[in-house]
């Protein structure tokens, strides 16, 4: 892959188009083979959506038009209207067109659009008109010829628009839409000055290494001389029995030699000290240079965002001013790359959902021109990016209504939610308050992409909403993920690395118990709240319940996301050292690991886990709550994990259990369920048997093989009703095996109650 910084926006679009087209074609061909599951359709929809975003950035409205139609068709398919084989052909033809576009140079893009406009329009007609009928290619072909003349004008308009919007700045970085992982193969560009410094320091290191080799040879020579000296002493002892005078002379010689060797050893040690010191200094400088080579100014992403604002605001007929501050703020280039897509999503949302039209703004007493402020800065060693608009703000009541309409919660629960909790629904996949979908935004899956991308980079997203005045999204991320200052601590003979910038303090304290017998330690002196809970850090990591015995203990106090000391302390066994570690991402095959952010290697070349402070705090408080509840009033009950690769079955079970007042979390397959089981506590697992990734039997075996989860009640629910299937499920460790063909709601709910206990949520109409 070429250096991305050397590519123009259009070249980046071409790369993006190639990747997305390949993805779309692979998945469409899978559709052709009858694989029409939800994951495939969702992947297709995302692929079309990402490509649409990329096309919009380079102003290719013809491609936007086509990809929007494709996306629409995938959405309709997700809602249950299957894609006919003839439509798959149509979609494949659409991807062929996009692949052709990816091969066209920037100069030829306008001409290509003009040439293909009629064909694109015909495909769009087929794709958007195919709802409810399997129109297919035949209709498409007819439409092509019938519409070709009609759309000739449209084609010209598209072409002229593109010519106007085609980017010209060669030095701009490009937008990387979608979530493709590129960093592994990405080349880095650094200035020749920095590169020269790195070479110079590497050369110094090499020279120092050669000096160490020479020193080692000199010390080896000295060792041989000392060995000879020892042999001389033995000889002198033998000679002593024969001639005492010669013995004295020999010993004198030996002592003189020993004295010279001792002096020589002293010189060599001094030399070694000097070289080690120089080597340390040089290594540190080299490290810093390499680290800084990874950092780029935040301003690298700004030109694209300005272009996006210009294109979209023009298209929507809105006047918008984008103000950017902190363009020189340094960010790790991998994180910066990953930020491009979330920032685009947020900007599009601000322009489409947030900012009102000029007329409405003026009527509301606001300036005619809408304002979007983008700010990047470092706070407490973290990168904080804020994107705020002065639009109408999010209609929190509409969010709640939408959540109720979608069956995500009932009206009573919605009424109890805080504004912040209600706004969390915006980050759910596919959640949108818009009744109609536009090409700009409104599908609603932008924000979940924003959140997941930021989470992948080790960050978090918060919304601050002021109705009538605007919305601000704040993303908090690490400045770099390559190097990190950590405190190494020991927990039950294992080392863990704790990010130093999240440690408020480490203290030797005296653990006491409060009136309820719970272990507590001294927190930051506050009014009426001087004692805070303390739990073993390992129990938070393991999500198990354990108490710290009263008496002396070492504890870590963390800073929360806002930089304040969290009101819970974590007991550790030992503080080892403060050090800088090279951060490695966790193997994606392991999935999301609660409370573990990354991994590094110790000086003994052993993996050491880097803990995630936010998760530790969350798990700590959760563990504490469970411990408190368990000791006071018995464990909380009523949480069920439903696993099924069929959305229909999942939904059916979810509704059944919700009606019976259980809390329900769903997963699409065994592997996702296994990850969820690591992250939170459940009272019952209800699982299908035949699923991708990890089937139900394997999931049961995993659960039964895990010390913490071994006692979790499990119901297997399957279409397979043969006796051997049932036996296989029960032998694997399931508590019950229910055949879907014989499913009876009341019997099923009775079984759930027997295994998980009665539901905890209050019945409808009862007091909260």
């Amino acid at each position, binding site marked *: 892959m070429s250096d991305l910084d050397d590519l123009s926006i259009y070249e980046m679009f071409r790369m993006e188009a190639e990747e997305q087209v390949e993805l779309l074609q692979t998945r469409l061909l899978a559709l052709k083979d009858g694989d029409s599951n939800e994951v495939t359709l969702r992947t297709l929809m995302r692929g079309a959506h990402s490509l649409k975003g990329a096309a919009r950035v380079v102003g290719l409205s013809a491609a936007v038009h086509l990809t929007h139609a494709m996306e629409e068709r995938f959405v309709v398919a997700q809602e249950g209207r299957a894609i006919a084989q003839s439509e798959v052909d149509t979609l494949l033809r659409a991807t062929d067109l996009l692949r052709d576009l990816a091969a066209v140079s920037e100069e030829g893009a306008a001409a290509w659009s003009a040439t293909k406009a009629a064909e694109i329009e015909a495909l769009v007609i087929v794709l958007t008109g195919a709802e409810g009928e399997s129109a297919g290619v035949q209709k498409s072909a007819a439409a092509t010829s019938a519409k070709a003349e009609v759309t000739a004008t449209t084609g010209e308009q598209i072409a002229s628009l593109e010519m106007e919007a085609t980017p010209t700045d060669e030095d701009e970085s490009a937008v990387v839409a979608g979530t493709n992982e590129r960093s592994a193969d990405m080349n880095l560009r650094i200035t020749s000055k920095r590169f020269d410094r790195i070479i110079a320091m590497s050369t110094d290191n090499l020279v120092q290494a050669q000096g160490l080799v020479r020193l080692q040879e000199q010390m080896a020579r000295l060792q041989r001389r000392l060995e000879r000296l020892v042999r001389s002493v033995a000889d002198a002892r033998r000679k002593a029995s024969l001639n005492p005078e010669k013995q004295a002379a020999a010993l004198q010689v030996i002592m003189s030699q020993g004295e010279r060797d001792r002096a020589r050893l002293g010189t060599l040690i001094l030399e070694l000290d000097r070289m080690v010191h120089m080597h340390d200094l040089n290594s540190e400088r080299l490290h810093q240079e390499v680290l800084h080579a990874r950092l780029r100014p935040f301003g690298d992403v700004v030109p694209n965002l300005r272009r996006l604002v210009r294109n979209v605001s023009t298209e929507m007929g809105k006047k918008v001013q984008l103000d950017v501050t902190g363009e020189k703020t340094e960010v790790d280039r991998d994180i910066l790359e990953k930020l491009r897509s979330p920032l685009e999503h947020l900007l599009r949302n601000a322009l489409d959902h947030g900012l009102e039209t000029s007329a409405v703004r003026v009527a509301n007493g606001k300036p005619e021109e809408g304002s979007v402020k983008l700010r990047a800065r470092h706070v407490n060693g973290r990168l904080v990016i804020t994107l705020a608009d002065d639009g109408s703000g999010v209609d929190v009541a509409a969010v709640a209504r939408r959540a109720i309409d979608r069956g995500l919660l009932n009206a009573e629960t919605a009424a109890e939610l805080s504004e912040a909790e209600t706004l969390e629904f915006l980050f759910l996949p596919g959640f949108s308050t818009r009744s109609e979908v536009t090409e700009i935004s409104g599908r609603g899956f932008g924000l979940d992409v924003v959140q997941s991308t930021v989470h992948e980079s080790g960050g978090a997203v918060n919304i601050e909403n002021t109705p009538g005045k605007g919305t601000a999204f704040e993303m908090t991320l690490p400045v770099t993920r390559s190097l990190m200052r950590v405190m190494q601590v020991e927990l039950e003979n*294992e080392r863990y690395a704790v990010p130093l910038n999240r440690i408020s303090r480490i203290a030797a304290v005296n653990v006491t118990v409060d009136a309820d017998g719970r272990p507590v330690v001294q927190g930051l002196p506050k009014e009426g709240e001087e004692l805070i809970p303390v739990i073993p850090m*390992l129990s938070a*990591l*393991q999500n198990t319940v354990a108490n710290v015995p009263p008496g002396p203990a070492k504890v870590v106090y963390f800073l929360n996301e806002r930089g304040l000391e969290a009101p819970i302390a974590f007991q550790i066994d030992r503080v080892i050292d403060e050090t800088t570690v090279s951060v490695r991402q966790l193997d994606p095959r392991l999935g999301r690991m609660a409370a573990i952010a990354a*991994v590094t290697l110790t000086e003994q070349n052993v*993996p050491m886990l880097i803990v995630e402070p936010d998760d530790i705090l969350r798990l700590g408080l959760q563990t504490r709550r469970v411990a408190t509840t368990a000791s006071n009033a018995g464990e909380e009950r009523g949480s069920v994990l439903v696993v099924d690769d069929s959305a229909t079955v999942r939904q059916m079970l979810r509704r059944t259990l919700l009606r019976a007042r259980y809390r329900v979390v769903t997963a699409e397959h065994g592997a996702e369920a296994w990850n969820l089981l690591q992250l939170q506590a459940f009272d019952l697992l209800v699982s299908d048997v035949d699923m991708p990734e990890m089937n139900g039997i394997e999931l049961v075996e995993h659960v039964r093989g*895990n010390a913490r989860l071994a006692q979790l009640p499990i119901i297997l629910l399957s279409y397979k009703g043969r006796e051997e299937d049932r036996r296989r499920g029960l032998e694997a460790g399931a508590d019950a095996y229910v055949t879907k063909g014989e499913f009876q709601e009341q019997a099923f709910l009775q079984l759930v109650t027997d295994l998980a206990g009665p539901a905890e949520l209050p019945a409808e109409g009862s007091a909260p």
Partner: protein
Amino acid sequence: MSDSKQPNSTPRLAPWLETRQAFFARPVPDGYADEWAAVLAQPLAEEVETKASMLEVRLGEMQLAIASRYVKAVTEALIICPVPHRSNTAFLGLVAFGGEVIPCVSLVRILGAADAITGTDARTIVLEDRPGERWAFMVHAVLGVSTGAIRARSEEQVSGLGHDWSECVFDDEHGRLIEILKSETLFQRLKRATA
């Protein structure tokens, strides 16, 4: 569709097409069908023997062979870093090898072969399925790398491993007959263990 109307036919191909038509249009020679029937009726060879390079290891009492092409390294027993509430009977934790952090799985537990692996002969094996997808597991001992013949496993050679784990045996250079772990099953189970 006749040959003469084939879309790809050109005047230059016409003579060849005529020859081809003449060849296939001729009557079947006497006894031709019987000859083929006799050939097809012959039993297939009982075993197809191929040669391969295998890493031979000992897991408890079992001696097993793993195709060498998947083996990236054999190293002294590496220190395992357990992962809180993820390490279990099958997934032991993470190991570092060659600057990489690799998931370490207990093949012993997956196979139900023996207890924990200790001792000076213990080794860590690093396997690679696809580029970048590496797994580590420990064995009681490495017996060596050998080239030999692979044959289908007959029932009397079964030593506790099911057919899903092993279908073939390996005649090594030292005259040992060792069961070969099926690579698909092996990687599938390793993948599940780390899921």
